């Protein structure tokens, strides 16, 4: 059976009628007991399992997933990867993620199609330009490469943008992060799943958590649709479903679930070679390798678990797109969808032990979990292996809501996350 992916194995299996490929991962029966059980088979959960096995040598690890791998927000986001944050604590987390992404394809032997095409945040007024300079300075002080672009450079790079004299949001310049880009979202989930499986991790799909098993006030496992599974430590990385599992475990979280929607156009020839966001219109866009324009924006303002977007927000996003790119008026939309994102009051994630001892949290990513998958997995694996915080995850503990040490990135970096 062919397990390693390479040009040579593609040729070999091509000659062999594609009959020799090994399945990317097994579908094992659940064991009764694991060292660590992770709830949630999205990017965060699968990456956590991989680093638990790889970095920490934890032998018995299971990932349990109610639906299918990467079927939640990992498969529903617009695939942007960036680390243009304001606070040092956020930069430590998100830039670690970007650095890990840069070598991830090779590490996992899985093509995640990382394309570091840069990301541009459009600036539309002189006052905003001063805030942009502050943002760039903050990023540089935190060790992340970033620079200001002036109007003429933006015009050279994105000639199809609306530079008309009567544009509603004139271009004064942009914040540019060269190392930012996009990656194939499904491939990130599948790559981690395949690599984790090869290290002995059991991936259990169509396995839903019904309740938490507790003994002496401590979480000792989960009751699932496939029977009871016990574990020394249980982690949850379930994004929009965090509130549902928290209720089962008997606590509340500072999280509200909202719909974030996105859409893609019909495919067109290459016309746009970066990732662009405008805080004024709230719309962001990139072009996929297939040629589709991938379009996203802000949250629907109605808390929801519906996994489908509402019309007013779609209209806002698309009006913003057409204001920025009048040429896209001719485009037709191909697909539109929604995911349920877990939004915290300070737009920063939550890591650490939950109010139920033995149960650990990785959540509150809001609209920005995909870019953070490698770093989220790295620090959550550390937490689940040791029971204590990673240096990077400590500021993101749940206790920040009691101590008041919030990391308000919506205010700091000036864009929604």
């Amino acid at each position: 059976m062919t397990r390693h992916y390479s040009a040579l194995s593609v040729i070999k299996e091509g000659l062999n009628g594609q009959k020799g490929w090994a399945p990317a991962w097994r579908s094992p029966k659940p064991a009764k007991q694991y060292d660590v059980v992770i709830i949630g088979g999205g990017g965060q959960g699968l990456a956590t399992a991989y680093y638990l096995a790889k970095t920490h040598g934890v032998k018995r690890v299971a990932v349990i997933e109610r639906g299918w791998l990467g079927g939640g927000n990992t498969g529903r986001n617009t695939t942007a990867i960036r680390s243009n944050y304001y606070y040092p604590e956020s930069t430590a987390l998100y830039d670690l993620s970007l650095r890990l992404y840069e070598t991830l394809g090779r590490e996992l032997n899985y093509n995640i199609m990382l394309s570091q095409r840069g990301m541009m945040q459009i600036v539309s007024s002189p006052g905003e330009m001063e805030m942009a300079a502050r943002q760039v300075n903050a990023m540089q002080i935190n060790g992340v490469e970033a620079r200001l672009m002036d109007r003429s450079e933006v015009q050279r790079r994105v000639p199809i943008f609306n530079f008309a004299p009567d544009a509603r949001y004139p271009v004064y310049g942009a914040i540019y992060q060269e190392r930012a880009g996009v990656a194939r979202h499904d491939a990130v989930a599948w790559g981690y799943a395949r690599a984790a499986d090869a290290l002995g991790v059991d991936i259990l799909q169509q396995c839903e958590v019904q309740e938490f098993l507790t003994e002496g006030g401590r979480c000792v496992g989960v009751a699932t649709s496939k029977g009871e599974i016990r574990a020394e430590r249980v982690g949850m990385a379930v994004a929009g479903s965090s509130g549902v599992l928290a209720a089962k475990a008997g606590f509340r979280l500072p999280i509200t679930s909202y719909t974030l929607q996105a859409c893609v156009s019909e495919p067109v020839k290459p016309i746009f070679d970066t990732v662009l966001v405008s805080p004024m219109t709230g719309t962001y866009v990139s072009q996929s390798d297939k040629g589709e324009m991938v379009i996203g924006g802000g949250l629907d303002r109605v808390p929801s678990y519906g996994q489908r977007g509402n019309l007013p927000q779609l209209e806002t996003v698309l009006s913003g797109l057409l204001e920025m790119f009048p040429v896209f008026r001719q485009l037709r939309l191909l697909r539109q969808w929604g995911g349920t994102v877990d939004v915290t009051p300070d737009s920063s994630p939550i890591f650490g032990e939950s109010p139920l001892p033995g149960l650990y949290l990785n959540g509150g990513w809001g609209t920005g979990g995909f870019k953070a998958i490698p770093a989220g997995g790295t620090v959550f694996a550390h937490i689940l292996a040791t029971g204590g915080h990673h240096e990077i995850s400590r500021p993101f503990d749940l206790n920040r809501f009691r101590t008041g040490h919030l990391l308000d990135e919506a205010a700091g970096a000036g864009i929604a996350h």
Partner: protein
Amino acid sequence: MQLFPCPFCGPRPETEFHFGGDAGNTRPDAAASDSDWTNYLFFKHNRKGPTREIWMHLTCREVFLMARDTVSHEVSATEALGGEA
């Protein structure tokens, strides 16, 4: 576009409304513990399915209670608060 029934103005577009949090989340005394304040300020029920929430109709500025389903988006009832928050 979904219509939400304002108890004062009748059915209005969803964009006229602002979400205000869980119903029954009452403000603690000034002398309450940090934990009580934390719970009041930040921690949510975030229920999947039927839930009761406080909303504001931005155009008439009235705050009211809405019972709705967070999966189907169906609104089962809205009522004025009648003096109690």
